[in-house]
């Protein structure tokens, strides 16, 4: 079914066949076939149609060496029923160490279990940008994602650097 233009003028006496054009148009809006290409604008989308969750930290956290959850870098999402779209979780962090050549690992955890990890070797007292991405097609439900960081090798103390202009964040989007 496709959309068909419909109009009447004063004094016109349409038949049932013409009135049914409205019904066909209705059905085409219901199944989507009557919606023109490029007609849906971003303002038509609800806020959570794409962005399911976001959490950030704007202050340094540390020092630490063992696995530590990054405060604020977490979000709880609700995946709608019947979902067929792919979830993309983006984690942005800026770790540094007090010792050169330390290896740092960051995890994305879903409901407490690691689903993705990324590693980096840092220079002394410098901070590095460490990004970790996770993707899946989730079933409907509620899930909590969080970021955990730890020293994977070396002897230094770890800091996750963050500020208002350099936040660490976890962004969950349905794409």
């Amino acid at each position, binding site marked *: 079914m496709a959309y068909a233009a419909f109009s*009447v*003028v*004063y004094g016109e*006496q349409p*038949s049932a066949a*013409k009135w049914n054009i409205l019904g066909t148009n209705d059905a085409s809006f219901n199944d989507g076939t009557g919606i023109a290409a490029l007609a849906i604008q971003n303002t038509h989308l609800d806020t959570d149609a794409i962005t399911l969750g976001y959490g950030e930290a704007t202050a340094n956290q540390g020092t630490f060496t063992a696995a530590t959850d990054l405060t604020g870098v977490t979000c709880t999402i609700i995946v709608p029923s019947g979902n067929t779209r792919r979830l993309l979780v983006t984690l942005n962090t800026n770790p540094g160490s007090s010792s050169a050549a330390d290896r740092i690992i960051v995890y994305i955890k879903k409901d407490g279990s690691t689903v993705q990890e990324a590693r980096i070797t840092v220079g002394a007292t410098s901070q590095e940008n460490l990004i970790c991405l996770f993707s899946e097609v989730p079933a409907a439900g509620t899930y909590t994602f969080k970021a955990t960081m730890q020293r994977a090798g070396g002897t230094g103390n770890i800091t996750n650097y963050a500020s208002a202009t350099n936040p660490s964040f976890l962004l969950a989007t349905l794409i």
Partner: protein
Amino acid sequence: MIKTHMDRKDLKVTCNKCKQSGIVSVIKNQDPMLKQKYIIDWSNSKGNNIISFRHRLDDKFGFECICGNSSILARAEKGVITENKPSREDISEVITRLNKEVRTTSNKVDGFTIEEV
């Protein structure tokens, strides 16, 4: 009550664009409660190509075919008659335009051939 037996006209309407024909019954309205001078009886129509009817201000019958061809509005009504009830000025404008047109009695009206059957 509409008196149908005396003032019914069965018309064969052929769309000159897609060449499909349909039979429709148009009834002269004698019910003072109804404003339309002519009413179409869709229940008595044959064929399914004619999907709309209108008695135009030039006193001719306008039709719309399923193929999109339409004579619902007379040339003189276009741009004046809309979905709203026409004002006195609107009707005067149409009459002025009609008076400038050459009147014909042809059974071919704006893309449709209308024959009494």
